[in-house]
């Protein structure tokens, strides 16, 4: 069990007039090889939650176990944990600082104390993984386009070769094509054997790629399960400011109108298939 969270509660600025509870009694488990989606409205506690995944936030009540190591333990080896859990924050391109792409990607592995040869190998490999052309290695990261910068930043985390990769809104601010490319890239990384946790507010994105979802609302897990299980709660999700994928909405409306479309249909291909089956059959209640 790579990540296990038990009864985690986080209070923001305790003891001040601005005190607020960001996380309240969160319990969740993430298994090896899964593609997990964490969804929630702005301020639902998503970003705070993932800061606990590699010990950036500690000391709240509750326990966070990564591969069995309790991160709230003062003696926990945080460097080892950060090696296991790679965290890519929102707009990661704003963390770039080195003169060249190569050096920036090498920052993480160098901090791990690896040999220069190993760092070099990892940089080349990471650039390959995120689809960066090797000719860009010596360029300044500040001269690249937004999407390319983000790839460099993700490569910087991948070069630490984590077994779990956590991404906070990896597709935010990208155009539709860039968005699609980014998500496909993450899917490829998942296929190479890395456990993925993706934070998003796009139901379409998480519905397409994730095995399991956690829906956060006001610092609590409101719903969890496979996308099909979560999307059944369309109206409740609406109430907490979230939406279900367009196809799930269409399926729900058709179902209400009396057409025979199963509850777990939310992917475009599936819904289209069921619509085709319904053509000519008429409504089932007639």
């Amino acid at each position, binding site marked *: 069990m790579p990540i296990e969270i038990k009864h985690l509660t986080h209070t923001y*600025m305790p003891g001040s*007039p601005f005190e607020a509870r960001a996380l309240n009694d969160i319990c969740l488990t993430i298994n090896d090889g899964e593609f997990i989606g964490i969804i929630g409205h702005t301020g639902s506690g998503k970003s705070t939650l993932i*800061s606990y995944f*590699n010990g*950036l936030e500690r000391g709240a009540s509750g326990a966070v176990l990564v591969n069995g190591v309790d991160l709230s333990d003062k003696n926990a080896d945080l*460097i080892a944990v*950060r*090696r296991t859990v*790679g*965290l890519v*924050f929102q707009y*990661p391109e*704003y*963390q*770039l*600082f080195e003169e060249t792409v190569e050096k920036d990607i090498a*920052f*993480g592995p160098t*901090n*791990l104390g690896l040999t220069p040869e190993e760092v070099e190998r990892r940089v080349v490999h990471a650039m390959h993984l995120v689809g960066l052309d090797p000719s860009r290695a010596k360029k300044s990261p*500040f001269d690249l386009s937004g999407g390319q910068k983000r790839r460099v930043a993700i490569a*910087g*985390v991948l070069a*630490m070769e984590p077994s779990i990769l956590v991404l906070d809104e990896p597709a935010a601010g990208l155009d539709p094509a860039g968005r699609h490319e980014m998500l496909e890239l993450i899917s490829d990384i998942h296929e190479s054997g890395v456990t993925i946790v993706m934070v998003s507010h796009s139901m379409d994105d998480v519905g397409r790629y994730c095995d399991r979802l956690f829906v956060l609302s006001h610092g609590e897990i409101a719903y969890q399960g496979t996308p099909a299980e979560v999307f059944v709660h369309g109206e409740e999700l609406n109430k907490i400011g979230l939406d279900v994928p367009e196809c799930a909405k269409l399926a729900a409306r058709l179902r209400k109108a009396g057409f025979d479309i199963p509850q777990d249909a939310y992917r475009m291909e599936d819904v289209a298939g069921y619509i085709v089956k319904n053509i000519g059959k008429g409504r089932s209640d007639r």
Partner: protein
Amino acid sequence: MIKNVTLGQYFPGDSFVHKLDPRTKLLATIALIAVVFVSNGFAGFVMIAAFVLLTALSTGVHLKFLFKGLKPIMFIIIFTFILNVFFQQTGEVLVQFWVIKITTGGLRMATFMAARLILLVVASQLLTLTTSPISLTDGLESLMRPASKLGFPAHEIAMMMSIALRFIPTLMDEADKIMKAQKARGANFETGNLIQRAKAMIPLLVPLFVGAFRRADELALAMDARCYRGGAGRTRMNQLKYGTRDLIAAVAIVALFVLVILANRFCPF
């Protein structure tokens, strides 16, 4: 850890002091500072302290925040106190051993100086706790306006101050985010010698500066797009106006001044 720094520590409220014109509050604070220096005895200090405390209580601001401002200068207060105890050698001798001699005069002077420092900080704390940064700069601009006739850039300074105040929390947030991101990449900001630590700041400072310049560019463009052209001929949405409240506050401050001067003359304690 960065989040614990409170800059622009405005404490929202709806009290008499909160509703005062920021210019009144600025001038009153200057007057309070002056009166602290005018007072030459403890009787005056007791009056000023009572005035400040009563005002603070009326604002509904938690007293804890009033004294929080003392923390950073605690060292200076203690240092001043010790220095005065040892080097002011007047009055009766209380304790004497080796070269150290503590006298009543020394103790009196030490307490006096410490009390003066504490009063100064607490009084000015009252201003920043009850005035939002924006109305504070508005008040400053208005007070500095006469000087702009002499070529003093009052509006520009006030604008720069509001922009700086507006962006401090944003930059703090950004610094916090970048720090977390670099820590996630194995960066170490906490240990190592001075040179190692300074070097460790590069991954934090470079993105922070890049971000600050980007923001400045965007802000300049946004101001341009809304036809900003400096202070000349610019009207305000919230006009500052003195009211009855401000008159009451002025009378109270003047009364305090008179009382302290009387105390200086007739109650030299």
